[in-house]
């Protein structure tokens, strides 16, 4: 660690591992918004979590599912940001430098998410059927030979060890990426860019494997009989789509409040819009690939997943997912004009983030309510609560440093980027 970039005190470390470098920021890249930027989402977050706490007291089964969906939503945004940063470094991308600080600040959410994930440990028995040990006991009437066969993988100690491993990997890579970039802001040493690329290469491989397994562990094992080898990519596709929406919305918020005007231009927005469109289609492609093979194979332990989602009212939710997560955004975002019409692009980004949450809801909630479809108010409150706290920490982090990697060697190319 160099002279000018210092570690923050251990209490703040969870939110930002470095002391504020805002005074080193170029005036054009300074965060000038008031504290409301993070106090407001924090207030919403706390309110949401307090309402959810009522849910925990009255209907803990529902609460844990709601909480898991909201938590997975925040985790997927962070993983999307992780992949975005890593890919930008590896491809030596020029266009994205002006918006890269947004995902860079997002990836330091992993430690906070690890802490916010602790309540899930107490709800493991409610969430995950495979935690019921009688399933593995041949003498028990509950004995389930299929799940007993999966005991070697689906058991608590191994699950917890895997979770710990994922978060350690993600935090380690994110720490390197985040601190290297902030260091470059303050002391533009040669070689930082090469170091970022090196950790990105390692990060991409580790991230790919851990994300696929994390998606299987967190979401797929809710329905432990079911399996789908494409599920990790399905999770990634949605996450990478959602991070584009987040970058667009954060950029718009900053610009509305008088920052980065003339730095982030409609050309950058259009490119983010292209990625948003592309990964909406990619999500549909993967979702359909998963569906078609299961439809064709017609094996009971695979079709059960779709069967649960096509009866007892869930068929409406499935139709909403198909129409609103794919067909409508496909038609709206197809043209060039809609990606350059910023109010419409912003609206579609909010839309896609809601649909991204709905995607997780559609995966997790039918496990709980398989007899009749239901959406609980705690689904919304836990989502807003976690997302509020998550956003507050993110905004606070943004306020402590320059809004753009100001000494990145490719910044000038990004500033003058056009795609007309």
């Amino acid at each position, binding site marked *: 660690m160099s002279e000018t970039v210092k570690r923050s005190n251990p209490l703040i470390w969870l939110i930002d591992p470095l002391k504020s470098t805002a005074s080193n920021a170029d005036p054009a890249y300074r965060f000038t918004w008031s504290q409301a930027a993070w106090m407001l989402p924090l207030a919403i977050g706390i309110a949401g979590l307090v309402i959810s706490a009522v849910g925990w007291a009255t209907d803990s089964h529902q609460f844990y599912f709601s909480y898991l969906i909201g938590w997975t939503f925040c985790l997927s945004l962070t993983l999307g940001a992780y992949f975005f940063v890593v890919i930008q470094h590896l491809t030596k991308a020029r266009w994205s430098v002006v918006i890269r600080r947004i995902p860079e600040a997002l990836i330091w959410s992993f430690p906070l998410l690890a802490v916010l994930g602790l309540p899930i440990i107490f709800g493991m028995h409610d969430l995950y059927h495979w935690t019921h040990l009688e399933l593995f006991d041949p003498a028990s009437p509950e004995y389930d030979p299929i799940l007993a066969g999966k005991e070697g993988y689906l058991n608590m100690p191994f699950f917890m060890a895997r979770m710990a491993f994922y978060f350690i990997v993600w935090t380690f890579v994110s720490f390197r990426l985040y601190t290297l970039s902030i260091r470059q802001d303050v002391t533009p040493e040669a070689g930082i860019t090469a170091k970022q690329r090196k950790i990105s290469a390692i990060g991409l491989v580790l991230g790919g494997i851990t994300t696929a397994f994390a998606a299987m562990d967190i979401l797929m094992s809710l329905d432990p009989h079911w399996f789908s080898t494409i599920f990790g990519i399905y999770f990634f596709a949605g996450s990478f789509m959602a991070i584009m929406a987040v970058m667009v919305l954060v950029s718009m918020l900053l610009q509305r409040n008088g920052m980065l005007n003339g730095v982030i231009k409609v050309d950058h927005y259009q490119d983010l819009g292209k990625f948003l469109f592309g990964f909406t289609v990619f999500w549909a492609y993967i979702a*359909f690939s998963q*569906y*078609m093979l299961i*439809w*064709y194979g*017609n094996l009971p332990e695979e079709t059960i997943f779709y069967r649960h989602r096509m009866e007892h009212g869930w068929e409406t939710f499935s139709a909403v997912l198909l129409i609103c997560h794919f067909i409508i955004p496909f038609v709206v975002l*197809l*043209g*060039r004009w809609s990606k350059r019409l910023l109010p419409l692009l912003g609206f579609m980004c909010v839309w896609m983030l809601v649909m991204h949450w709905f995607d997780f809801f559609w995966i997790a909630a039918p496990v709980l309510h398989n007899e009749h479809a239901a959406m609980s108010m705690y689904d919304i409150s836990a989502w807003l609560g976690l997302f509020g706290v998550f956003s507050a920490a993110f905004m606070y982090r943004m306020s402590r440093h320059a809004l753009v990697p100001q000494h990145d060697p490719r910044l000038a190319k990004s500033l003058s980027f*056009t795609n*007309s």
Partner: protein
Amino acid sequence: MLNQLATEVKASMSIYDAQEDEVYGLLAEFAHPGELLHAAAAVREAGYKHYDTHSPFPIHGMDKAMGLGNSIIGWITLVGGITGLSLATLMQWWMGAQSYPIGISGKPFFSIEPSIPIMFELTVLLAALLTVGGMFALNGLPRPYNPLFFSKNFLRVTDDAFFLHIAASDRRFDMSSTEAFLKGLGASHVETIHDREEEDGV
């Protein structure tokens, strides 16, 4: 009327009709890509429509300088995509359920699930083919004969020279005033091009 329309359509593909005296237009040479860019903007502002620029590499901002606007190629792609999608759906239904129905492991003769890959592929295929074909058509390609090839100087266009060509078919074209105008823009060399179809090019 129809002839005029054909002329304009051809002009949009950079194919210009020569005048009766075989004059095809004026070819101005510029030393730098920047000069060509400014000249193109000035020519557009002067109201010329039938003109084109030639350079060894793409010049950023040239589309704006020439006022080309957005290409309609996207709409051609859309037409290709929709055609492919409809054809594939029809084909899957007709072959599976009408022409030769075979029962395979209890699956319906026609259903949307296994047809989607075919629908997707044909959508992409026709969209891609029409995009490439449309791009060629909009650019007037392939074009083995071009009167500009009569200019010896023009051979350098793939090497180190930058050219602006104003066609004689343009309404504002006038041999002397257009030549003076091009010289005024900083052209190092202005040449009259004749369309002599019967002769051999260089």
